[in-house]
């Protein structure tokens, strides 16, 4: 089954073709970073305009790279829940036109389900329900128990900023460019993670609650305080604080809920020191860590097509009048989580 996946939930226009939920035939993304850069954050109206300008190029490129045409598609999937309303509607409009013109099923996906399912793609045999998923992105940081296809339980989330958002804000403050987390990772390689003693909010609380805004404030204050700042040391110490928070909370929740398989998802899952730290902690607790293929971590269309493959078998197709929601409950149990917006 060949599914075209579309994601226009935020500031990237993603289109991809995935076969049977596993084989990524193409996965193309148009970034809008430059269009928003001078505004210091993502501007929804501009994001929507950029999606409208680029979506049809992305669709064509996704098919071209997969060496197929519209008539070879078996279904079309799109993120319709979670993200910027003005952006979501563009991808949804394109997806509905595809479903209509090609006469194929339309599958609406919660953007977060895309992130979660990026772990199952190519590995659905190794992962067994229930497992833990730590999603760490620019817009969310949360711990979910994945009970079965489309059924989740919220085990923890951030009270304030998302980890990726904090990485991006600090990177912006240091004028390091985007993605902030990647820039910080690069600088941190040559730095000393113990140079600064940054706070690790809530780390000793025995639950899955995260908080990153105090850490962000402390790091920005340290930058502003010191004109001869050693950026490498600062980045290494900052990154370490984030890693410590993520790893300790994930391990705590995994133990408490007796989940032996831990998956990592979202853009921050690209971070190599985080992956290593999780692997290390997992050994101690006899857990197994799964990380998505690197091209499936940041927002992309392939994860949407991947999730759609599995969820279509459970839920079937959607009708042509599906709507969009900026903040939608997740899955069959309607998991609600606080979503602190990184958007202006």
């Amino acid at each position: 089954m060949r599914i075209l996946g579309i994601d226009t939930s935020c500031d990237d226009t993603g289109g991809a073709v995935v076969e049977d939920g596993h084989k990524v035939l193409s996965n193309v993304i148009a970034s809008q970073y430059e269009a928003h850069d001078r505004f210091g954050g993502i501007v929804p109206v501009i994001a929507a305009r950029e999606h409208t300008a680029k979506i049809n190029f992305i669709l064509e490129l996704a098919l071209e790279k997969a060496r197929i045409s519209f008539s070879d598609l078996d279904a079309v999937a799109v993120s319709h829940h979670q993200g910027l309303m003005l952006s979501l509607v563009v991808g949804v409009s394109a997806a509905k036109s595809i479903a209509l013109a090609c006469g194929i099923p339309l599958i609406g996906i919660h953007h977060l389900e895309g992130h979660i399912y990026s772990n199952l793609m190519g590995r659905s045999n190794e992962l067994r329900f229930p497992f833990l998923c730590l999603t760490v992105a620019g817009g969310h940081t949360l711990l979910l128990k994945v009970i079965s296809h489309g059924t989740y339980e919220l085990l923890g989330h951030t009270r304030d900023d998302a980890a990726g958002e904090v990485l991006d804000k600090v990177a912006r403050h240091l004028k390091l460019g985007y993605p902030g987390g990647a820039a910080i990772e690069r600088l941190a390689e040559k730095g000393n993670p113990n140079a600064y003693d940054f706070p690790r909010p809530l780390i000793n609380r025995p639950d899955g609650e995260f908080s990153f805004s105090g850490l962000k404030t402390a790091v920005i204050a340290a930058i502003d305080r010191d004109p001869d700042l050693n950026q490498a040391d600062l980045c290494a110490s900052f990154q370490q604080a984030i890693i410590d928070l993520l790893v300790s909370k994930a391990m705590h929740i995994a133990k408490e809920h007796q989940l032996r398989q831990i998956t990592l998802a979202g853009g921050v899952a690209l971070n190599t020191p985080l992956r290593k730290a999780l692997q290390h902690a997992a050994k101690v607790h006899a857990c197994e860590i799964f990380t998505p293929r690197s091209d499936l971590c940041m927002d992309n269309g392939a994860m949407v097509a991947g999730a759609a493959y599995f969820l279509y078998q459970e839920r079937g197709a959607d009708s042509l009048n599906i709507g969009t929601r900026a903040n939608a409950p997740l899955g069959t149990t309607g998991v609600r989580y606080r979503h602190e917006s990184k958007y202006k």
Partner: protein
Amino acid sequence: MRTLVLDTSGPFTTVLITEDYQLSTSHILRDRPAEHLHEQIHASLENLCITPQDLSQIAVVIGPGSWTGLNIGVTAAKTLAQILETPLIPIYTLDALAASCAKPSWTLMNAGRNQCYYARYSTSDSQEMAVDPIDTVIQQILADSNSVYVVEYGDTFKERFTGNDKYLSMDRLPPEALIAALKTSGSIEGADIKSLTPAYLQPSHVEQDASH
């Protein structure tokens, strides 16, 4: 020749199908229009017992108008034309307004922030569409001969034209006006379809603020 015509530029959404410029079916959606656009296209096709493949061209109102409405409509139309490999015909809101009455005429609509979109239509073709401060535009219109029609999309400026029996206010683009505009609008084909963007006519408010 069968044409699907979509208008998502205003508070209502219109879906028309025409055959050789004769109306075959028309539907106006009132609440949450954009959400139901495709469902309506599907229903309109079914009414006529035809499939998307029976459409020979797609037309869409590209603006100016509602930012989000235009993004949805233009994306829907581009994608249909891309898949069905049909020509795509962009229709300007102001041209459709002008098509609903005799020329010479002025057409205008509120652009927010004390600005308005407008164009003057002489007996044949239109002058360039523009966006300028409301007062400047209205003065210009009032200074023009009063035998000229003034068509507004919406009714924000109604009071400024009290007593002028050639002032018309329209809350949507009627089917006849869309069809008339369709006849005079040029079409886009092949690779150019993908690059069609709505005629926003001005930067977003955020960009306007940033440049001040």
